[in-house]
């Protein structure tokens, strides 16, 4: 054991302290790395959507009752765009809440609900609405592609669209009447009339998302 140590001293005197320098650098980097890992909060933040504050993507098509629906024709009232499927359990759970919400505003006519199906059979949807009620337009056939343009990740998801056609809120998961009303009140209260007039030209000007959607629709059909 003693001999090597002697030789090492000789070596040491000839060389710079490379190992010390290198390990110090590595040590500092690693400590910073560990601190970063320790401080990182996991999980994506929910509720953010690139649509918020922008013009709503197109939703247009034949409804279950034989009519047509176009989101652009709904300017002037609030619209809740609801993505759902009958095979999705939370969607069935939220259905009564939607009925209540729709019913509460049916008289005033200030809010419309539209349901957009996702990967679902038309017959299933008809049966479902016949059994559970719901007197609002339902887009059922070949409409799954809308989910992509609305950035839907998992069902159910709903979007509140302002009378000016701006998406103001995204609901992830099942909605409740209380939630819907409070968000609606908030959306009405926070940006009152002046902002509406501000947003309208902005929405009309921001051709990019809107143009994109038109193009996309043209291809989809």
């Amino acid at each position: 054991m003693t001999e090597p140590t002697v030789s090492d001293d000789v070596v040491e005197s000839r060389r710079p302290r490379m190992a010390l320098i290198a390990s110090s650098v590595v040590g500092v980097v690693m400590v910073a790395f560990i601190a970063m890992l320790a401080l990182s909060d996991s999980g994506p933040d929910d509720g953010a959507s690139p649509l918020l504050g922008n013009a709503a993507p197109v939703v247009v098509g034949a409804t279950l009752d034989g009519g047509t629906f176009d989101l652009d024709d709904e300017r002037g009232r609030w619209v809740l765009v609801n993505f759902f499927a009958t095979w999705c359990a939370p969607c069935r759970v939220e259905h009564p809440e939607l009925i209540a919400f729709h019913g509460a505003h049916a008289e005033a006519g200030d809010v419309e609900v539209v349901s957009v199906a996702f990967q679902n059979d038309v017959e299933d949807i008809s049966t479902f609405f016949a059994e559970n009620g719901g007197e609002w337009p339902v887009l059922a056939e070949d409409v799954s592609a809308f989910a992509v343009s609305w950035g839907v990740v998992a069902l159910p998801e709903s979007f509140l669209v302002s009378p000016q056609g701006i998406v103001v809120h995204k609901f992830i998961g099942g909605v409740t009447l209380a939630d819907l009303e409070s968000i609606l009140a908030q959306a009405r209260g926070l940006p009152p009339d002046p902002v509406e007039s501000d947003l309208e030209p902005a929405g009309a000007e921001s051709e990019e998302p809107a143009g994109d959607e038109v193009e996309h629709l043209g291809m989809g059909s």
Partner: protein
Amino acid sequence: MNAAIGSAGVALGLLASVFGVITLAVGIRSHKPLLLRRAGTYAALILVAGLIAAAAMERALITRDFTVRLVFENGSSLTPPLFNFASLWSALEGSIILWAVILGGYIALVAWKFRRRLDDPLVAWALLTMFVVAAFFFALMVGPADPFVSVNPPVGYDGPGPNKLLQNHPLMAFHPPMLYLGYVGFTVPFAFAIAALVTGRVGEGWLVETRRWTLFAWGFLTLGIALGAWWAYEVLGWGGYWGWDPVENASLLPWLTGTAYLHSVMVQERRGMLRVWNLALLCATFSLTILGTFLTRSGVVESVHAFSESSIGAWLLAFFGAIVVVTVGLIGWRGDRLRSPGSIDSPVSREGAFLANNILFGAFAFVVLLGTVFPLVVEALNDDQISVGSPFFERMTVPLGLALLTMMAIAPVLPWRKASMETLGQRLQWPAWFGAAALVGSVAIGERGLGTVAGYGLAGFAAGAAIRQVALATRRQGWRGLVGRTNGGMIVHLGVILIAVGIIASHANVVSREQRLEPGESFTVAGHELALVSVERTDTARTIRTTAAVRVDGGQIYEPQVNTYRVDGMTIPTPSVRTTWSHDIALTVSLGDWPDGPVQIRAVVQPLMSWLWTGALLMGLGTVLAAFPGRRRRPTDPVSGAIGVAEPEPERDPDAEPERAEVRT
């Protein structure tokens, strides 16, 4: 009952490792060999404790004892026996038990192997290090990852069973233990590296003694990764086997640094150089296994394979931090004194090639680590969410892989110290023609793309060099030309080359198509006609099984299935994969999220997939061959004379002998 036994086992393990640490620390400090010799008892106790915990948990799983939370959450009366047994390691807490058992096994083996040298400070420090690691893992089971938490199940309760993804292929029962044998196995060389640093013992003694441990750990890790890839291929149903997923990357990282070490260690054994570098590589390998465990179990990165989130993350990160601080501190303190006076004479030499190999593997590991944690870095810096995926990894690692293939061709024929260009030109002449032939052949059959055709050429080049070495060695030494580190290493190289060719071919030529079909309809993919014959639904107690019968090219019927689990509605496909030596057809049936719609058939046709699995097998075989002592041996070895005696089956005896002789040193 089971919970009580298991908790007792965990407590015993923690106590044994803590007392082991204390005893050895006191023994080393006060130079009491008597205390040091007690290490064997503690090692045995740790193994027994781990076994008790594992046995208690297995008993709870098998008897469906739902009062244990792990069983409550992962057991089910409907799970088939094999998967029920494997539930142990499909849950986070259970995987820590498996880790502890394997660690206990390694510790006991080390204590047994070095039983006559327990009072040697090097061995004492190594065991002390391993006891600390064991104490940490048992502490995890006492603290945040207690597998034996009791719950009160309602009457008639039946659990959901383990993760459905892990339930439909028997490979899942073998992949994790194999991987853990690899991960945990690196604890041994790491412990000896720490011991070498602490005792300041220069020289190569510790390293020769841990050579085979490292080799086996590496071999297990290799097979574990390969089994994981195979599992992904057979289960996930997209025809892929490697997705650069954080969990996959976490297993690849220690493999990369471990591979670098296996090469550079030869420079140290042969020339006494790169001592500090090798220590650093071992420390990096071990800390990367812990970092990988942290990444996969803390929920900081998202992955298909990740365990559910838990507070265990903070502990693992703290342990990782402690390892980094200790090893970096030790190397900084001792490193300059350990450095050897040797020097590399010429870049064109075996040691020069190993150095280049190390830099390439280091760069590979750096790129993989960077890509894996980069989303976290960006989020920490400016709160942006970004993803880093296969496009990044492929762009970065393909050049590195091609460079590694080149090194694989050149390095084996290089002599130590210095090579003349003429020698090199002569030895590489036929491998080069072999590579050129592979390149021309691949272009001739229509392969295109610089990376692809260059890959075939370099793989041929490397294969030529490896075959040349094996041929020379067997001509000189007969069957002995296949064993020993150098020769076994060439077999491993051939396995790597098979895998490389498999990856290049399947990647460049994969054809996939998906279509929603009603029975009677058909579609064509890569010249194969697929006709959906029928779709059948069978109800079992656990699942609703949808089986699609698909006739391929008017002949064979493939029957891909998809199981919808009743418990949670989760759908898990069971692709139907037919493998031939030249290409695979994998069919997956899926319902999407749309149970009532027409089934979707996805077909993936890829060439040379079988080469991947053959290559992995060859790598495992080569590792075993490399572990046998080779031709070179000290004249003082008593056995070297006996080998010459031509007996029909002399393999076992002469091989077992020198192994012991060498380790005892």
